[in-house]
């Protein structure tokens, strides 16, 4: 039964009832509800237990500021730690409270309340020091934390990333953002407007205001309709701008219902200019037991009664230090809530504000010192702010307003500076750091008229269109006298409700020497919850300011960091999950390898290569031994295609290779190749490989598989930055050539059986030479190199011929007992011959001498990369390790 639902009004669709469960109990709400509003409409007040002390908690906010009502969604769209105020209700939704077991009503963890004085600020850190963290760790880990992360990925749907580009990005579609969008869009700018709400309108959805003498909702609808007709406008709803990075690069996560298979889309937007129209967030007030279910932000109560058409209480007390709560009192009264009293900490209430609510008791110069009740609010204790006799007022709703904080999060992330505004008692944007501006409530323009004007003006000045017409609107003025905490508070007075941080905790942190505001934050964890202290942070600053007797300007708020609201990992990853994160690279032989039963390895740089080809009944060692014997005694073949291959062309290639290799390459004749080492200039081995000279100006450089990209970068950097006048051009041809390497004493027989026009005799084609010709009817380059130490012919062909070549090799080699060999056997074979492998013997700390390869270090060349450093290092007496055997 939606016992607290109003009969009419609100922005909900009573024709579309939705069923959901909360902590296993079935309820009903309407389309347009959030989980929070649906729970309140059903009379549910106790929704959660607190993080540390397991105190009973209810719903405090109505949007992203919610510090208290966290839920875990179960079922298909399982998700942990969602504020109930941002979960849109849908049919079949299953939610449960976090932080309590078995339920928020009967919660065994609530014994923590009794030992709360042993859990002060920093207790967690103190356990590190004494007597032994490991003593506490298991129980603390279990008790702390919130809901568990879902076990499985979402059952259906996917995430995606998308790039966006615009002249002007507007964050927030409230009155200021919409005005800015309208002016900029009419001027023809490419406008992107992103708003985190289900529908546009911002604060206008929650309040009862008029624009052009009609309900403000009409103006919102008209404006959106106009924007949607313009091709230069991208309008995103349900889209949170959560990060403002350097060079006007912003992250926007959109949850769209247009495409049911799309869970979330993360936009990466590069904007010419950013207009922060992010609105303002109401502060809580800090008094005793200010966390009891039934205590709510005044703006939230207003939102529930106006937007969601429900009664958050039957009898309300309003506690405020500013004018905005008077409109809330009016709206609640209109909906039939009995307003017991308005408690205003200011001694003087502006007359025109007082006049808006005639028949209600206003306790000026009074504060709420504590609340009464258990799991539900039953009343409040009210006393004069100067001290004196208190009286009790019974109520089941306390709507509190500590004033308004401009939502400067994005502005601040962009490194825009803030200043403390004494008049408004809050931090407001000061100097921009990037191409950005702040408008509306986000800029401290807290009345509707000012907000709309600031939005229009900002856009007009960007578009140079001259002042825009501002619609007429009504709103009362705003004034405030800050109240950072109630001094006579009785009972714990929470500053950060999510992390259970009280005034006493902050005072303790100050006493223990943590008096920098950033230290207070870390030590108390105030502002470090999922809500990032949206309602409480400035009260912490104010509390510190009072205690230290310094102005708030000198303390500054703590640093605002992204994300503004929690973001799912899926949205950031987009489609990059599983095999698409870093796809494997395959050669044309992969399928053949798999058919042959190869056990595949990653062979560096994401290449998939066969590790070994096991046969039935063979152990791993049997397989490797068999493959090795095949090569030593008969003939084997492997696919060497993943080796990095670069073609270098130009007059200065020889000179360049002499610089990057430790030995001399320039003396090679066309048709010859040479093994060499590349060193970095600090004398360590970068890579090894073979260089071939094709003709006077063309060379092939081959590198190890894993270092191919690094060597490409190395060569390009040297050529472009050190030797820009050298005539060398590099082309990556790794994937333009594939090769099958036939190795073993009978390799030449196999090549002969394949039929080739190349003379493969050791006189005509000695070691470290190559020849171009036909092999098995295919154009090929045959290279005499060896990785295994046996007679080897590397047959290079175009990739389109590789499978044909491979099949013919297997066929021609069959009478000779040819077998494919994997990288395991390859490694055994090369180790037996004492050949190097990058990443094994060469680990980034050894030089050529350590490896017994001093011969590769040219003594003739006066300079090459690494020479000076190797010599320098060996001048000293230091003992170096040496590879032996």
């Amino acid at each position, binding site marked *: 039964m939606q016992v607290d639902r109003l009969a009419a009004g609100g922005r909900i669709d009573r024709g579309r009832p939705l069923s959901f469960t909360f902590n296993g109990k079935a309820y009903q709400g309407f389309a347009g509800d959030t989980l929070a509003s649906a729970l309140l409409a059903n009379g549910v007040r106790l929704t959660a237990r607190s993080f540390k002390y397991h105190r009973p908690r209810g719903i405090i906010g109505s949007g992203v500021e919610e510090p208290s009502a966290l839920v875990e969604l179960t079922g298909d769209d399982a998700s942990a730690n969602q504020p109930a105020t941002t979960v849109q209700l849908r049919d079949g939704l299953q939610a449960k409270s976090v932080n309590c077991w078995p339920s928020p009503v009967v919660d065994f963890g609530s014994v923590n309340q009794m030992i709360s004085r042993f859990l002060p600020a920093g207790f967690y850190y103190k356990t590190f020091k004494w007597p032994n963290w490991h003593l506490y760790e298991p129980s603390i880990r279990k008790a702390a934390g919130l809901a568990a992360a879902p076990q499985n990925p979402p059952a259906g749907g996917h995430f995606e990333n998308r790039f966006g580009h615009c002249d002007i990005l507007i964050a927030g579609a409230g009155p200021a953002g919409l005005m800015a969008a309208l002016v900029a869009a009419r001027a023809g700018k490419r406008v992107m407007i992103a708003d985190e709400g289900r529908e546009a309108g911002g604060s206008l959805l929650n309040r009862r205001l008029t624009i052009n003498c009609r309900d403000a909702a009409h103006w919102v609808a008209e404006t959106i309709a106009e924007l949607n007709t313009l091709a230069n406008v991208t309008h995103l709803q349900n889209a949170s701008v959560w990060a403002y*990075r*350097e060079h*006007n690069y912003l992250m926007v996560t959109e949850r769209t219902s247009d495409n049911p298979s799309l869970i979330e889309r993360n936009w990466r937007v*590069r904007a010419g200019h950013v207009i922060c129209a992010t609105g303002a967030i109401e502060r809580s007030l800090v008094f005793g037991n200010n966390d009891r279910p039934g205590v709510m932000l005044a703006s939230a109560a207003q939102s529930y009664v106006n937007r969601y058409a429900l009664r958050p209480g039957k009898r309300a007390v309003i506690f405020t230090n500013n004018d905005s709560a008077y409109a809330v009192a009016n709206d609640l009264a209109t909906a039939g809530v009995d307003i017991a009293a308005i408690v205003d900490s200011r001694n003087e209430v502006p007359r025109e504000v007082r006049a808006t609510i005639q028949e209600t008791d206003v306790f000026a110069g009074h504060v709420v010192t504590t609340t009464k009740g258990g799991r539900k609010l039953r009343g409040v204790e009210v006393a004069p702010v100067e001290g004196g006799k208190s009286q009790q007022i019974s109520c089941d709703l306390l709507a509190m307003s500590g004033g308004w904080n401009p939502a400067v999060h994005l502005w601040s992330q962009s490194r825009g500076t803030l200043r403390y505004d004494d008049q408004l008692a809050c931090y407001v944007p000061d100097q921009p750091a990037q191409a950005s501006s702040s408008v509306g409530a986000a800029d401290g323009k807290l009345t509707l008229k000012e907000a709309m004007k600031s939005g229009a003006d900002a856009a007009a000045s960007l578009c140079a269109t001259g002042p825009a017409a501002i619609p007429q609107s009504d709103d009362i003025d705003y004034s405030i006298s800050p109240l950072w905490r109630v001094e006579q508070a009785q009972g714990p007075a929470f500053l950060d409700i999510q992390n259970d941080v009280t005034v006493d905790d902050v005072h303790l942190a100050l006493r223990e020497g943590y008096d920098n505001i950033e230290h207070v934050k870390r030590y108390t964890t105030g502002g470090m919850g999922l809500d990032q202290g949206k309602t409480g942070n400035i009260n912490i600053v104010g509390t510190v300011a009072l205690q230290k007797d310094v102005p708030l300007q000198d303390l500054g708020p703590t640093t605002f960091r992204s994300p503004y609201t929690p973001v799912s990992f899926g949205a950031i990853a987009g489609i990059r999950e599983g095999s698409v994160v870093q796809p494997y690279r395959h050669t044309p032989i992969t399928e053949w390898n798999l058919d042959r039963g190869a056990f595949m390895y990653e062979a560096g740089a994401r290449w998939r290569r066969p590790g070994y080809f096991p046969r039935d009944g063979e152990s791993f060692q049997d397989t490797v031994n068999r493959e090795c014997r095949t090569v030593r005694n008969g003939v084997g073949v492997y696919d060497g295609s993943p080796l990095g291959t670069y073609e270098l062309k130009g007059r200065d290639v020889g000179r360049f290779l002499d610089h990057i290799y430790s030995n001399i390459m320039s003396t090679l004749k066309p048709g010859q190749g040479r093994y060499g080492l590349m060193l970095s200039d600090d004398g360590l081995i970068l890579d090894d490989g073979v260089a071939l000279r094709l003709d006077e100006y063309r060379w092939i450089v081959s590198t190890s598989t894993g270092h191919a990209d690094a060597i490409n*970068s190395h060569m390009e*950097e040297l050529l472009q930055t050190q030797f820009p006048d050298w005539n060398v051009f590099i082309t990556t041809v790794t994937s333009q050539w594939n090769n099958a390497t036939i190795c073993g004493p009978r390799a030449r027989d196999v090549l002969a059986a394949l039929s080739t026009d190349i003379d493969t005799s050791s006189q005509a084609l000695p070691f470290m030479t190559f020849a171009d010709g036909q092999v098995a009817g295919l154009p090929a380059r045959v290279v005499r190199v060896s990785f295994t130490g046996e007679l080897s012919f590397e047959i290079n062909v175009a990739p389109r011929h590789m499978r044909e070549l491979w099949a013919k090799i297997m066929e021609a080699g069959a009478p000779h007992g040819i077998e494919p060999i994997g990288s395991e056997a390859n490694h055994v074979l090369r180790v037996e011959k004492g050949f190097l492998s990058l990443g094994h013997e060469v680990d980034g700390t050894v030089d050529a001498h350590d490896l017994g390869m001093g011969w590769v270090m040219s003594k003739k060349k*006066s300079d090459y990369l690494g020479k000076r450093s190797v010599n*320098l290092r060996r001048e000293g007496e230091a003992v170096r390790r040496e590879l032996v055997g």
Partner: protein
Amino acid sequence: MLNIPCPFCGQRNESEFAYGGPVKPDRPQPDKVSNDQWVDYLTQVPNPLGPVEERWWHVKGCGTWLTIWRDTRTHDIVEEPGDAG
């Protein structure tokens, strides 16, 4: 994400580039410098608070190694070191 001006491709996302590090002084002639000078050349990398000249490789674009001045405090890319704020 930086917006890096490539002399051939214009403004491009940082994700198209590989970082090449701060520009070091020109490589000295190895046989013309003392051991200490050589070691300094190898190990001393500019790391200023403020504008730094650095290299980026447009590896997922045109392949150019380019040089920019970037203010390490703000990420602003400036024409000359003197232009930084």
